[in-house]
């Protein structure tokens, strides 16, 4: 079974530039999550999709972050404009159903903002 695919693995940008991350979840998984993991901290949920609808985006900084999951499969997370404090690993995860807590994670996209 193919896992959760993410790209790019690494990205270095300057502050005020924009960046986009892509995620392809495990086939058949209805729920997709984007987490932000800052160095030394645990992953923090940014946004959760159920199929192509947003379930929870309460911790997404909506002035600069946006995410979409068109057609209920792939998802894109965008940051525009980036700030220094956005330097982190952005993790995509998927699960068969929401609420189970059994998430399958991708390898993450490491963002460095200079």
């Amino acid at each position, binding site marked *: 079974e193919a896992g959760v695919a993410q790209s790019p693995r690494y990205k270095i940008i300057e502050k005020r530039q924009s960046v986009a991350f892509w995620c392809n979840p495990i086939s058949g998984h209805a729920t997709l999550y984007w987490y932000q993991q800052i160095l030394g901290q645990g992953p923090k*949920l940014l946004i959760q999709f159920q199929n192509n609808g947003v379930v929870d985006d309460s911790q997404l900084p909506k002035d600069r972050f946006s995410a979409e999951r068109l057609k209920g499969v792939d998802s894109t997370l965008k940051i525009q404009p980036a700030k220094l404090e956005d330097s982190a690993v952005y993790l995509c995860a998927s699960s068969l159903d929401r609420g189970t807590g059994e998430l399958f994670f991708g390898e993450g996209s490491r963002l460095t903002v200079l």
Partner: protein
Amino acid sequence: AQSVSQHNHHVILSEAASLELGCNYSYGGTVNLFWYVQYPGQHLQLLLKYFSGDPLVKGIKGFEAEFIKSKFSFNLRKPSVQWSDTAEYFCAVNGQKYGNKLVFGAGTILRVKS
């Protein structure tokens, strides 16, 4: 206040030593509890989970965790660690009082010396 607390950020053990990693959560009520592990260079993966029933849960690779409701704890244990257990371990909780989100602790980096 932190919702999920992991007591140690770094732990160093020699092979064959016993391991116990602490995890406490803040809110009561019905919760689901998890330990996730991230081996060097790999993605986060589920180690074990507790939903209900026997509070002593056994996971992969000889790990186990005990849910003690009165102490709001879910400590991870292994009687004898191996060099290959070197990884970062994350405790996570979900439940109604967490907005049905999976909330992670800050993680514990375990290094096992051979």
